[in-house]
């Protein structure tokens, strides 16, 4: 973890892993006990609703994409029919390649990123180079390898960009985050989607959920709800998916993964 990436400096805890093992929600609560009681109340609400676990990600501007990618692959891994889930996901990805070329990305710039993501999903159903199928430990390992992890993040950024550039319904929502001015899809994507470390907002989240054909629920923690409740914003763009929705936890400027378990399962012993 000695490598540094653009955005690392933004993180107050640069030693945080890119994606951490699942931890009890109570660990997050402890961080607020002596601070904002608004957040504590909202965390208690989440716990009472059964969201007892959180998987933390590094705050490097890529956290939305990285969280979504991890939760997406983990959902494939945990699907009741992994074969159906993995082949479904792979066919969506396969079809995305010509779309990327159509909006002007050269194959040579995205094929390595694609191979990384598709390779990992394929490993859910067929043994990888190490002779093993994917389990939660090897998935965590892959996502903490900066090259693999960042390749996957970039591929999701490109999918997001291609969706924004080809979906005319999105055009009206392309607003410069600072000036509030309307932007054309090309410059919006150049500056706020394709660039490394640029955080995602609703437009990007919606576009990516559509492109990946995955439903996403985001729990917004802002510390301001008078009743201490948490609102979930659904990005339901995949009516016919085999996958469970991805659940993310938002705190101002950052995304983590929300879970109904408070620890990662111990992978079953592998047959020699």
């Amino acid at each position, binding site marked *: 973890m000695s*490598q*540094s*990436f*653009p955005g690392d400096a933004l993180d107050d805890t640069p030693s945080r892993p890119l994606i951490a093992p699942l931890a009890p929600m109570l660990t997050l609560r402890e961080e607020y006990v002596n601070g904002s009681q608004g957040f504590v109340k909202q965390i208690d609400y989440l716990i009472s609703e059964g969201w007892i676990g959180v998987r933390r990600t590094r705050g490097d501007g890529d956290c939305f994409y990285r969280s979504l990618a991890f939760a997406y692959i983990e959902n494939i891994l945990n699907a009741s029919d992994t074969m159906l889930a993995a082949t479904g996901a792979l066919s969506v990805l396969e079809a995305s390649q010509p779309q990327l070329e159509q909006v002007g*990305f*050269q194959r*040579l*710039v*995205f094929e*390595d*990123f694609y191979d990384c993501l598709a390779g990992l999903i394929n490993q859910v159903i067929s043994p990888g180079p190490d002779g093993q199928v994917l389990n939660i430990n090897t998935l965590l390992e892959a996502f903490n390898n*900066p*090259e693999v992890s*960042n*390749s996957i993040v*970039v591929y999701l*950024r*490109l999918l997001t960009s291609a969706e924004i550039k080809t979906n005319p319904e999105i055009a009206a929502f392309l607003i410069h985050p600072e000036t509030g001015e309307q932007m054309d899809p090309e410059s919006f994507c*150049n*500056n706020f989607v*394709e*660039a*490394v*470390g640029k955080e995602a907002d609703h437009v990007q989240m919606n576009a990516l959920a559509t492109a990946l054909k995955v439903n996403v629920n985001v729990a917004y923690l802002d510390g301001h709800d008078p009743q201490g409740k948490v609102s979930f914003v659904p990005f339901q763009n995949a009516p016919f998916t085999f996958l469970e929705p991805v659940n993310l936890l938002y705190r101002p400027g950052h995304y983590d993964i929300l879970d109904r378990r408070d620890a990662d399962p111990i992978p079953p012993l592998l047959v020699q």
Partner: protein
Amino acid sequence: MDARLRRVNKEIADCKSDKSSRVTIDLVDDNPFHLIGAFDGPEDTPYEGGRFQVDIVIPDNYPFQPVKMKFITKVYHPNISSASGAICLDILKDAWSPVLTLKSTLISLQSLLCSPEPRDPQDAEVAKHYMTSKSSFEKTARYWTMIYAGGPGEDGAGRPGKDAAKDEIAMAGLDRAHVAQFEALGFDRSKVIDVLRRMNYRGANVANINDDRVVEELLK
């Protein structure tokens, strides 16, 4: 093979197979992570007819980190340091994306030559020159293109010969009469050129600068 090397090799091959852009990338000492790129000065600009070389260093985390580029060929441009060749361009900094390639980045540098951004300068003196008198700036940029990049120069004849001395007044983008005026007071020509250049003694700005202030600077 290491992913970075695989990507760079693909990019170099892609650039070689494309003859239409006239962008070239060559290895320095067989090191695939230290390269020299080159492209033509864009048409209808003071850089037209010149060939510009760029030093390229591929960082360890490429393509997740931006490629490092600076001009080897000296360029007179508000966003390029006239001394070091350092470049001020967003995609080389926080707007970098792994979808950019060596070729597309070099083409962006070519576009930068077409559209200077003097309000976000790398070379403040050149930017001031540009904003004071665009025609004088262009004349100087054209002269630099002739001297350093093999451009045709003002009269289209090109550089008078390798040994011919550079005209320091033209290099600094100054008016001959202004230089002569202060030389006549007994100051050394190179000192006069240096001071007038730093004070942006050009075009309409001349009226804002008192002669006494120039002399004061010359005496420092």
